[in-house]
Each structure stands twice: as structure tokens, then as C-alpha cells.
């Protein structure tokens, strides 16, 4: 098992065009990301291609365009990787049809003002067992619909069609589930993002 290196340090090294840092990051995070991607893409080869392509995106733009290290300080590369991996896997499921929402380049993604800080992700990661228990309280119907959004990449309208439910009902379920999760995490995390 490779020695774990702090992700902040790895991000700085990646910005410095250090390929060994990308390998170290791959060793640390690929198992978690692969677990998530394989839930969305049944073919192991296709899932692996999505995963590898994601890590390679870290090399190309920053290497060629010289991302400023100062602008990356404290940014959670881990959060960006998870959200982007899910976007990439959803796009692959939809045969390359990219959905609206996130900007897609690494530079824009890591410069997003809303991207959580690494200390926030570290705190959240240390409490994932409590998060799991909170999520288990989600009503079954809401959890089922949430899974369709998260892992099937379906929109509210598409879910309504798939389940033969009124769009308004699906919309209410999706938003209630997301609101429930956010509120529960807010409670678990105390001050949430304000003063962590």
C-alpha cells in the first residue's frame, strides 16, 4: 500500500507538472472513484476508461497552460474529482451527450468559487459513518428516485417518464430528498461551511 501523501501537496505538485503526483493521487483515490463509476457504467473496461481519462485531464491542461499554484491553495481536488467523475460517467452513459451545468475544463473547475476546501472535505470524510446513518433515514421512495438522478443521470422529466409518475410528484421527491440530505449534513457538520 503506497504511503498516503496530503492531497494539498499533491495538487501543488500536479500544478508543477509532476507526473508522479498524478500517479500518487491515482493510487489514493482510484478505488473510491472506480467504485462510484462502476455503479454507473457496468462495463469494467468502459468504467476504467472514464477513470483514466479523468486523471489524464489533470495532466494535460495544467501542464500546458501553467495553472497558478496560488489560485489552487486549499482547493479540494478530491471534491472536484468526485463531481466531475460522476458527470463524465453520466455523459458516457448518455453516449457522449453532455448535460448542462458544470463548466468542464480543469482550470475552470478548480477555479470554481463554490468548490469546497480540502479542510471541509477532510472533516466530512471523517464523519462519513454518521452521514451514512443519516442517509439511511431517507424515505425509500425518495432514495430510489435520488439514485436515478445520481447514478442513472436522469433528469426529473426522464424519471417521471420511466416511472410513469406525474412530473410534479417526481420533482417534489427529488428536491425533498436533496433538501433532506443537505439539512441532515448541515446538522452533522455543525457550522457547515461557514467557519470550518
Amino acid at each position, binding site marked *: 500500500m503506497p504511503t498516503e501523501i496530503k492531497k494539498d501537496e499533491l495538487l501543488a505538485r500536479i500544478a508543477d507538472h509532476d507526473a508522479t503526483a498524478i500517479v500518487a493521487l491515482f493510487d489514493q483515490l482510484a478505488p473510491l472513484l472506480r467504485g462510484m463509476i462502476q455503479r454507473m457504467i457496468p462495463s469494467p473496461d468502459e468504467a476504467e476508461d472514464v477513470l483514466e481519462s479523468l486523471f489524464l485531464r489533470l495532466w494535460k491542461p495544467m501542464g500546458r497552460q501553467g495553472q497558478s499554484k496560488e489560485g489552487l491553495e486549499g482547493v479540494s481536488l478530491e471534491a472536484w474529482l468526485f463531481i466531475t467523475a460522476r458527470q463524465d460517467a453520466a455523459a458516457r452513459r448518455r453516449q457522449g451527450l453532455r448535460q448542462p451545468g458544470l463548466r468542464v475544463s480543469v482550470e475552470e473547475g478548480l477555479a470554481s468559487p463554490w468548490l469546497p476546501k480540502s479542510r471541509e472535505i477532510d472533516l466530512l470524510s471523517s464523519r462519513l459513518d454518521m452521514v451514512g446513518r443519516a442517509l439511511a433515514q431517507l424515505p425509500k421512495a425518495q432514495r430510489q428516485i435520488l439514485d436515478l438522478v445520481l447514478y442513472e443521470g436522469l433528469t426529473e422529466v426522464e424519471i417521471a417518464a420511466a416511472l410513469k409518475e406525474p412530473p410534479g410528484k417526481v420533482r417534489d421527491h427529488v428536491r425533498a430528498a436533496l433538501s433532506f440530505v443537505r439539512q441532515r449534513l448541515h446538522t452533522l457538520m455543525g457550522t*457547515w461551511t461557514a467557519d470550518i
Partner: protein
Amino acid sequence: MDCRHLENTYELFLLGVIGETDAARIQEHVDRACPNCIGGLREAALSLFALLQPVKPVLSTARQRSHFLQRLKEAQHAAK
């Protein structure tokens, strides 16, 4: 700057499962540094990070790691 109508859509925006009109509205707010939207999106990103954690990690096989190293090497070579 009223963002209340966007509050329930931040996760959907980050997931890319939102209509183009709402996506454009949120992006517009982010572009003008709207503190409500940026704060809401940050909470949504943390929420999604928690939701997306896999039940079980899938370790890299030697073949998978080797394949990744080869692709990275090719990317390095192409960048020179």
C-alpha cells in the same frame, strides 16, 4: 438579488440534470459572484460528495495501474 427560486436546484446544476434555462441562471449568478448562490453550491457540492461515496471501494489491479501509467507516459510524451 433574489436567488430563492434557485435554492433547490444547486445539486441538480452540479449533477448536470437541470434545464438549460435554470443552468444559465445559476451560471449567471456565479459569474457575478452572487454570495447566496456560491454558498448554496458549496453546500450542494459537499452534499453530493457525501452521496457519491461508494459503499465499497474497488482496488486497482496490477493491470489497471499499469495501463494507466502507460497512458500517462503517452500523454507526457505527446506534451513534449
